[in-house]
């Protein structure tokens, strides 16, 4: 008579054990940090902030931060740690600054489209943490499509930067177009306004006829993709760009 109950007990233990092992497998491994040979008082961005990449992808340039002392000169051998929302991968996630006081790290953004805040920190001699916050932009599918359309059609006039392969037409235009990152202007325009000006051209909003109508060339979903791209890259950030992902 006691055999079914003991079978039940075994079952219970098995369930408990598997639940336990599942919870154990989630534990995080402790990271071995290198020992700093020097300490700074400030950490500054050298390059690599405000980059744009696809979700999950590597940023085109590494993020480079520099540790300085009180006089503002670079400190070699200081420990820098990088943190961000789950899903962001740093290679390396920590390290000592090189002889020019800098640490470069390759960053892959997380899987969700939006802005990712990256925190680079170092400690000063009194073990106080000094932080630097950077933002990077991850494009989802729709924004990537918009980015492609921007390169093909819009960027030739709206992007003032020239490259060897492509000379910008920005300087040749009597009425200057707004670069798409110009949040101060573009954030004030509603999606409906942007759709109108893309579809029917500048005169639709009493603006220059130098902005042609694209409604017969771009589809409605193309226009939406472009707007989502414009919202994603605007600086200062647009409200439509969604939340900023920070470390928890």
């Amino acid at each position, binding site marked *: *008579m*006691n055999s079914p*109950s003991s079978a*039940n*007990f075994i*079952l*219970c233990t098995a*369930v408990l054990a598997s639940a336990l092992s*599942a919870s154990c*497998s*989630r534990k995080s491994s402790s990271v071995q940090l290198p020992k700093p040979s020097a300490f700074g008082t400030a950490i500054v961005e050298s390059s690599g902030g405000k980059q744009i990449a*696809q*979700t*999950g*992808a*590597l940023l*085109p340039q590494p993020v480079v931060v520099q540790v300085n002392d009180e006089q503002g000169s670079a400190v070699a051998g200081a420990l820098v740690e990088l943190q961000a929302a789950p*899903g962001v991968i740093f290679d390396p996630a920590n390290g000592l600054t090189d002889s020019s006081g800098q640490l470069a790290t*390759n960053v*892959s953004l*997380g*899987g*969700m*489209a*939006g802005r990712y805040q990256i925190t680079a920190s170092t400690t000063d001699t009194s073990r106080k943490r000094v932080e630097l916050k950077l933002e990077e932009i991850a494009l*989802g*599918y*729709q924004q*990537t*499509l918009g980015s*492609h*359309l921007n390169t*093909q*059609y819009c960027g*030739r*006039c709206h992007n003032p930067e020239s490259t*060897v*392969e*492509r*000379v910008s*037409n920005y*300087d*040749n*235009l009597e009425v200057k177009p707004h670069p798409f990152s110009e949040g101060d202007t573009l954030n004030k325009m509603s999606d409906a306004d942007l759709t109108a000006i893309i579809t029917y051209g500048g005169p639709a909003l009493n603006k*220059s*006829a*130098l902005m*042609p*109508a*694209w409604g*017969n*060339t771009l589809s409605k*979903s193309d226009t*939406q993709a472009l707007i*989502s791209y414009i919202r994603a890259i605007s600086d200062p950030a647009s409200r*439509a760009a*969604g*939340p*900023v*992902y920070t470390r928890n």
Partner: protein
Amino acid sequence: MKQKLTSLWQKLFGDSVRAFGVISVVFMFSIAIAPAKNHFSEWRHYQHGYLKMIRNRSDANTLQRHFDSGIRQIWLPELGVVDRCTSCHVGMKEASLSDVSSQPFRPHPVIPHKLEQFGCTVCHRGQGAATTVAEAHNSTLAWEQPILPAKYIESSWGECHRGSLPGTPVLNQGRNLFSRYGCVNCHMVKLPNGTTMKATDDPPSLSHIADKSTREWIYAWLKDPQAYASTATMPNFKLTDDDARDISAFLIANSTTLPGDSVTLSAKPSSDPATGASLYGESFCASCHAVQNAAGNMVGGNIGPELTKVGSKVKPEWLQAWLQNPHSYDPGAIMPHYRFNDSQVATLSTFLLAKTDSDLLANVHLEAATPQQVAHGKRLVSDYGCASCHEIAGIKKPENFAPELSRIGSKSITQLIFLPGMPHTLPDYIAGKIKQPRAFSPGLRMPQYNFTPAQIDSLTTALLALNEHSTTPPPSLAVPAIPESNYQPAGKAGKLMSDLACFSCHRINGHGGDMAPDLTWEGSSAQREWLVQFFKNPGTLRPALIRRMPRFNLTDAEANELTDYIVMVYQNPAVDRDSMPLSGYSQGEIELGKELFYGKYACQGCHIVDTKTDKGYIGPTLTQVGSRLTAAWIYQWTKNPQALRPGTIEPNRAMSDEDARALTAFLISQKGGATKETAKK
């Protein structure tokens, strides 16, 4: 101890009523486990969390109405989808939750497909039927399919979409690299349409290599191709000194001489050292070939090989013969046959031969090869599969040299051997193999490539797309690629076009490169006389472009031959070139066209008609468009540019017939007089 146990046993089960009571309690407890497990389940926890989160939002009512408690499931038998992901990812379809930053409540980003029609695991992989976080996302002993990391997500799109999509740049790049670096020369990839993937690299034949290069250069190249040219396609085979010595010995011994490989020039190079550089510039060699400048930057295109150290590689007499006509050494060469005269060949070859690197061959000292070394070299050439890419006289192209990769994206991880410390997932394995192929076991022959981390990610994405699903998707979902046509023009003009390698830059009828304009309808668009003049002396139509059509020094007969063919054959049925006159428009129409050009349509934003006032740099300069294009083409083009050249960036303005006619009248009146006047001033 034993006594204690016995007394406990007596207490619990000593009399039958008590035993019944105890067993009932135990049963009740065990029966309660199932509902308790359900009650404390993860999905219920997340659904509670969701309800708590939406409670204080302004759109709480709408969200509440959309909410449906319990395990949710998307079941699509045709796709093999049983996805319960939406049990926890509750707000997936709620666009208004876009300000929420915490998972699992984020809405799904906008995509072209509907969730109910495709489910989740079709793109994201993972275990759709699982209802716990760990089982759904991670790979466990029982579940092999973890969630696909976001950086490889485009691989899932590639399972159905075989062609390139504008929204999948990573996948497109990966597929291009896979062909461009000749991976498919060794690894066969069968495509679902029954064909095999083709390589797009163009490895040279080695059957006459002794005409072209020295054994010392071959040795240095074999040891480290990137030391000669950092952009070299050939990977590093990590050969030992002896192996490189023997392979170079075999290749030289195996090489036969081609009669046209050395020429006697009747002229000396120009005495002015600047002439070589200017001839290199005028001939637009840099459109295809790159040279590394002093600052370390590559200047030039990547269609032909890098020329930074070409003087250390080629023999002078071979280079001269090549410059005279590349097709006598390699009939399939993608380089055009410039009709250089002897003096130009001498000047250009002197200029190129000066591009040397004294360090490259400084330490290479090879004794004369012994027959044993040559024989050993031949064996190595077979072992390393050199003939998979290169044509080598006497060596057959090996078949199935490397594992087939048609279904690599479905490979079970139990069949893989991982490196220590490597995460046990298929994407990590593939990326690791591309990064360090030889690390996986001694004796592997796959060479070392120099891919950047981003390139490795994109190659991995392309490889993951080759899987069971991609080979057998439901037919309704497969979106086939547009096959590359193998169009070849016929006759004398066709031969001339191959000789000039027009298709290396231009595209006609779906075949050819994309550096220069598509010429499929060139016969409808260009005026005959302009074409002849352009062939003889190509001017530039787009001042901002650094790549331009080179001058091929064509004879009158050749220019006319080509023009006749183009005007006759490359005709668009919708554009009758004789339907509109090239002159005779009324002044009123011309004036109206001018008003439309500068006013309503603001064409000066991209084009230049009056060089004094207009600055537009995007489209071609139109100062002489009346002598260049046919009126019928201008008319049809203004009405719908994409209909004539799909993908062209000029917007379709949906012009009325009257506007289009007036603009045509204005543009056709631009015969180039204005430019000459300004030039005089």
